[in-house]
């Protein structure tokens, strides 16, 4: 038995969402025009799930970076690793861990059924021993070191550390060399048993596949693991930031910055409409057609690395501007001034209609790629969105809807993080 719902769109694409009795949610988009297909098996479990209780038992804390560690280890089973199985089909396989999800994925141009079988098999068969855990500590240690040298990654996490006092979003996704040293096989099993329950998981498939066959295969293969209730312990995060400015000396030649506004939030997740409005507002504030973008470019304060995003997930939300600049403080001040001006005078209606048009085009363009659709499904699964809702929203959101969202900007909650060149450079 399963519940099934079909969604249609005006651009000729449609998709199915099914909820299985064991709680698993499945998203499928048939895209027969393509040669290949893409599948993701994911769990609502990421780096911020560091303290939780299962089935009403007392809450436990686990080492930072364990979700990512588990991702690495799940590829192994008693018989060998999943990569060996994929090698026999030619599929490309990978996995990633973010703040609020862990996803295992593959893409293939042939043998979809066999590949899906491999994916369903290894994600449901944990196998951890003290020996294999120890070996992985070496590899992940090198991954952490690699990120330590990555300026974009460093400046971003420094900013999060200054912005959040308690929320686990401030911690590197892979943890630290010290924290992962505390991970053992028992801890991995305990996290697996909690979060890798079908009721906490989702499967997203897009591309050249037959939806009915895929659903049948998933229905037969994904085991019911009994009901589980997970309570994620809150972070007791205050409204204010820890610091407004953070700087680190780093081997860069041009300073690198990340400038963010922490948002006061009252619910764990943001609605899609408010996300869309904030994103449109960002285009108006500093998109490539905006007056501010031109000023910053003309004054030599930003380059093509300049970027911005609405960064939000469970119990956190922030607007972040990032890039390289000879003078990050001047960039931050210019952004603040532009926002103040928009709060007071509003914005150009012609620009508003152009950025809406552009966002609509982007939403259509996503269907150029089965991979993009499958990954967007993971967002739908974690945040409970409809894939086509954006297309509708870009046509309906009003000037006032967007202007209202200037409320996400409070100068008192802004944080500037800078990586500045080493003295001897």
């Amino acid at each position: 038995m399963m519940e099934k719902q079909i969604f249609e769109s005006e651009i000729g694409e449609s998709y199915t969402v099914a909820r299985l009795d064991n709680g698993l949610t499945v998203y499928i988009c048939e895209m027969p025009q393509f040669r290949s297909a893409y599948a993701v098996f994911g769990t609502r479990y990421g780096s911020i799930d560091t303290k939780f209780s299962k089935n009403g038992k007392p809450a436990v804390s686990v080492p930072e970076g364990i979700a990512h560690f588990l991702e690495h280890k799940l590829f192994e089973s008693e018989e060998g690793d999943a990569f060996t199985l994929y090698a026999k089909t030619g599929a490309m396989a990978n996995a990633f861990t973010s703040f609020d999800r862990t996803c295992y994925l593959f893409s293939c141009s042939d043998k979809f059924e066999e590949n899906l079988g491999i994916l369903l098999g290894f994600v449901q068969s944990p196998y951890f021993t003290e020996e294999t855990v120890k070996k992985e500590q070496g590899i992940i240690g090198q991954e952490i070191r690699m990120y330590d040298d990555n300026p974009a990654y460093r400046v971003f996490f420094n900013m999060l550390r200054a912005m959040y006092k308690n929320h686990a979003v401030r911690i590197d996704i892979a943890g630290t060399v010290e924290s992962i040293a505390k991970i053992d096989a028992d801890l991995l099993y305990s996290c697996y048993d909690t979060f890798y329950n079908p009721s906490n998981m989702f499967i997203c498939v897009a591309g050249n596949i037959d939806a009915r066959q895929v659903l049948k295969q998933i229905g037969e293969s994904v085991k019911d693991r009994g009901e589980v209730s997970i309570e994620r312990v809150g972070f007791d995060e205050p409204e204010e930031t820890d610091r407004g400015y953070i700087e680190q000396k780093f081997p860069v030649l041009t300073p690198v910055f990340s400038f963010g506004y922490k948002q006061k939030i009252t619910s764990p997740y943001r609605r899609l409409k408010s996300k869309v409005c904030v994103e449109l507002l960002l285009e108006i504030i500093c998109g490539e057609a905006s007056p501010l973008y031109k000023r910053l470019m003309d004054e030599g304060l930003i380059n093509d690395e300049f970027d911005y995003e609405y960064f939000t997930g469970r119990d956190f939300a922030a607007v972040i501007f990032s890039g390289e600049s000879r003078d990050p403080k001047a960039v931050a001040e210019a952004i603040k001034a532009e926002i103040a001006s928009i709060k007071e005078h509003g914005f150009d209606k012609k620009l508003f209609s152009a950025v809406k048009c552009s966002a609509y085009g982007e939403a259509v363009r996503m269907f150029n790629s089965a991979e993009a659709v499958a990954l967007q499904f993971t967002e739908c699964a974690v945040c409970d969105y409809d894939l086509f809702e954006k297309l509708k929203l870009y046509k309906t959101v009003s000037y006032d809807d967007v202007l209202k969202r200037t409320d996400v900007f409070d100068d008192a909650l802004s944080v500037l993080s800078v990586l500045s060149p080493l003295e001897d450079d």
Partner: protein
Amino acid sequence: MLENTTQLSNAAKGYFIKTERFKTTYISYNFYLPLDRDKIAEFALLPFVLTTCGKEYPDFSKLNFKLNKLYSASLSASAEKVGDYQLLKMSISVIDDKYALDGEELVVKAAELLNSLVFEPSVQNGAFSDEDVRREKRKAIEHIRGEMADKRTYARRRLIEEMYKDDIYGLPKCGTEEQVAAITPESLYKAWRELISRAAICVNVISGVMPQNIFDDIKARLALIDRSGAVTVGNSVQTKSIYAAKRVEEEMDVAQGKLVMGFSAEVDPDESRSAPFTVMCDIFGGGPYSRLFANVREKMSLCYYCSASGEKRKGLIIVDSGVEDKNAKKAEVEIIRQLEIIKAGNFTDFEFESSKRSIVNSLQSYGDHQEAIDAWYTVKSASREPISPEEFAQYVLKVDRQSVIDAAKTVKLHTVYTLKPKGEK
């Protein structure tokens, strides 16, 4: 896939690649010029200047506004080295007319826009505008500096510089910082004249329908230019093996060291005979089944990444890896040992077959990505009759073990570049 080829002018071809898979039309201009020490920086800057302003759009805010109104039409520019040639690309991607909300003509408008940017730059009295050149030079210099901060890219670039000290291929793809700084509005204009008159040109149109008149427009524009001296793209000079490998060590303020090794190889420039080289490189350091991944990373836990990539035109293989300094020597010995295993024919059938399957899988997926199709035909445009990814896949399937061994036997260590964390000897 390749529907037809149109001769646009002397050494200028238009390819129409018909495909119904996408919601967008993609058009790219590709200019090939032999690498030239004195002009490399000017040529590399041109695509960026030309795609930020033009005669019709002297101000990049207005250009970006126009792109927004074309439903997020996206303009891109790049400058790459392809063997001993410089490849300068300008492209536009736009959603097809049927998705426009008010029946606007998008594809033709986007094609006209790109044509006007390429052929009608914002120029006065034989020079680009001072302001535009200054801005783009600054961005280019900051980009060069930014690449130095990315240690993986930096280490690979340093290897190439060291390996090709006396070869034109050793030049950085966008020139040096000093060369960029020396560009003037006049010298850039001269370079643009040379670009449109002397470069070998290939224009790719990837779409469900051929946009009307596009090749006729380009033909008419090129007819006004004297292209009698246009170059044709020939073979590049292959890397010569050297007797004793060169070693270069540098120190930097980094957490993780980098080990990059360059090898010379003999590769047949004929497409149909180069497949064994492709398979050999992949067995060596391609997917998770490869010798380097399975041994250096998985068995020995020495690094998070260790992979090999081949550049056929130059007869070059690069192995790169992020390793702790204390493990660098061990990793280097192991990498060489893995190559020797392939030379001796001691790779397994599993590795051999997995590699072929993986390459074929990826070749079959090319048609699902417009940019991949574009990249494929851009590079193949130098051949008299470009083969499709599927045709190359047939050659890969025919590769036998002995031809892999023969290809490996031509591989010789040329240069080892090590980036060490400061203070560790």
